């Protein structure tokens, strides 16, 4: 059992028009060990004493001449708010009176006879001091929490802005391909990322993915990932099967750089502007959707899916070979890449998941529209389905060719 806290050093003022009662209560409290107990004969006298000295607790009678207990309680609350504890002593024990007293005072003691006062007073004082201390502590903790939350929001905003730099496509322009993207971030920082990098005069690398975890840890990993990915993209392009090589390089780097439980899932594509050829390695949790000839195919040649976590204890180095496949993107055809935020979002009323099949159906339905319009219409349907109550990050990328410049 937790020992009772000692409040004997608190300053107490006893207010009662009866000299016998106020002196008796003062004596009782001093005998109990309370060190600072003063007395006042009515409300007016009490307020004057409060002007001269700071009290922690006022124990006041209800019926008094000059200024009664009720008026005193009102004046004290007006002056000190809930920073002072008020206990009312009253001979009137009607329910109505108790309710009235409890609206403003912290507690009450029925003043039937002196023995009852003696019996109640120590218990009530101890309880009031404890409650007051708990309340003040809660207020302090709440204020501290709000301050921390404010700081956390500022830090999250900063982290979000840093990550935003990694979600830019507009710096890369192409005469052959059209790239469109949509990205929104949830309240917490998710691990979605995407980038497009020009590799040479005729090649563009497009990378989309997700890092495990969310919040500040994901933001920190993202910065590590960003450097590793940008280097791997340039280095992998010089090798055979460049998309597979890029992911091999990235896997090996992340295996060293990431904490042992963290990984990324990534889809990497290289767009050849001379030939319209797209090569890809899809180690992402979702397939690439290839929209052509009134149909939609799921392109997924992934082998390990989790990049940066497997070491040689689990997977021998010779099996770290990624697939690379290529196809020609013809005029009118489109490919789409997307993160889980889209297909895992739910209708808030039915709980039904948006799902991959619904996404495919919508993309096919809008296949004849220009790329941006097809994505816009699909997103419109998505937000109608989810009633705009989306909690996850959403990343949606589309690629098409610009008609008339294709070389087959």
């Amino acid at each position: 059992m937790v020992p009772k806290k000692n409040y004997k050093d608190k300053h107490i003022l006893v207010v009662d028009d009866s000299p016998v009662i106020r002196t008796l209560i003062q004596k009782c409290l001093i005998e109990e060990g309370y060190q600072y107990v003063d007395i006042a004969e009515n409300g007016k006298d009490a307020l004057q004493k409060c002007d001269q000295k700071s009290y922690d607790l006022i124990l006041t009678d209800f019926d008094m001449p000059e200024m009664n207990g009720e008026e005193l309680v009102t004046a004290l609350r007006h002056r000190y708010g809930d920073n002072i504890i008020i206990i009312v002593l009253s001979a009137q024990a009607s329910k109505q009176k108790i309710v009235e007293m409890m609206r403003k005072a912290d507690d009450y003691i029925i003043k039937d006879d002196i023995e009852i006062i003696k019996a109640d007073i120590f218990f009530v004082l101890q309880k009031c001091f404890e409650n007051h201390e708990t309340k003040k502590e809660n207020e302090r903790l709440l204020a501290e929490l709000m301050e921390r939350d404010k700081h956390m929001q500022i830090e999250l905003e900063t982290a979000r802005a840093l990550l935003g730099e990694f979600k830019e496509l507009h710096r890369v322009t192409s005469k052959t391909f059209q790239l469109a993207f949509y990205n929104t971030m949830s309240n917490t920082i998710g691990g979605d990322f995407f980038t497009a990098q020009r590799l040479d005069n005729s090649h563009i690398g497009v990378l989309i993915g997700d890092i495990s975890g969310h919040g500040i840890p994901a933001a920190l990993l993202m910065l590590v990932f960003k450097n590793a990915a940008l280097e791997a993209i340039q280095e992998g392009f010089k090798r055979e099967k460049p998309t597979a090589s890029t992911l091999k390089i990235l896997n090996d780097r992340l295996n060293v750089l990431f904490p042992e439980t963290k990984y990324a899932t990534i889809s990497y594509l290289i767009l050849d502007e001379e030939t319209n050829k797209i090569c890809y390695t899809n180690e992402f949790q979702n397939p690439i959707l290839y929209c052509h000839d009134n149909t939609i195919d799921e392109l997924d040649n992934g082998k390990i899916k989790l990049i940066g976590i497997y070491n040689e204890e689990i997977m021998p180095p010779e099996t770290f070979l990624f697939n690379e496949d290529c196809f020609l993107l013809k005029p009118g055809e489109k490919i789409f890449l997307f993160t889980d935020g889209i297909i895992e979002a739910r209708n808030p009323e039915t709980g039904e998941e948006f799902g991959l099949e619904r996404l495919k159906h919508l993309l096919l339905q809008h296949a004849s529209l220009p790329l941006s319009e097809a994505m816009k219409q699909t997103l419109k349907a998505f937000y109608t389905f989810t009633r705009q109550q989306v909690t996850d990050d959403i990343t949606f990328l589309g690629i098409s060719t610009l008609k008339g410049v294709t070389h087959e």
Partner: protein
Amino acid sequence: MEINRRETGDVVIFDIKGEIDLYNAPEIKEKIKDEINKGKVNIIINLDKVSYIDSSGIGVLISSLSNLKKVGGAMKLINVYASVRKVFELTKLTSFFEIYDSEADALAAFK
């Protein structure tokens, strides 16, 4: 999440109940580390009562498997159902983990 520990011979079985996520996944890793320190390197993870596993949970299972393999041990998973199995399939974990339908099968595989 609750973790219950049992032993059958030299195999330690962890029955996990609830959801495995960012906030509690490290607990599983710590428990397996403790077993390795005690020389218990054959572990079965029973996912029968696990309704959800997130990327942190997946990460912890893989890194624990790696830690066990480093000391010549092994980890086998049992009762991988529904949404958890779906995550395992999507992330190709079914190729890297030994998954059994029953505890008896997993125990027999240790012999």
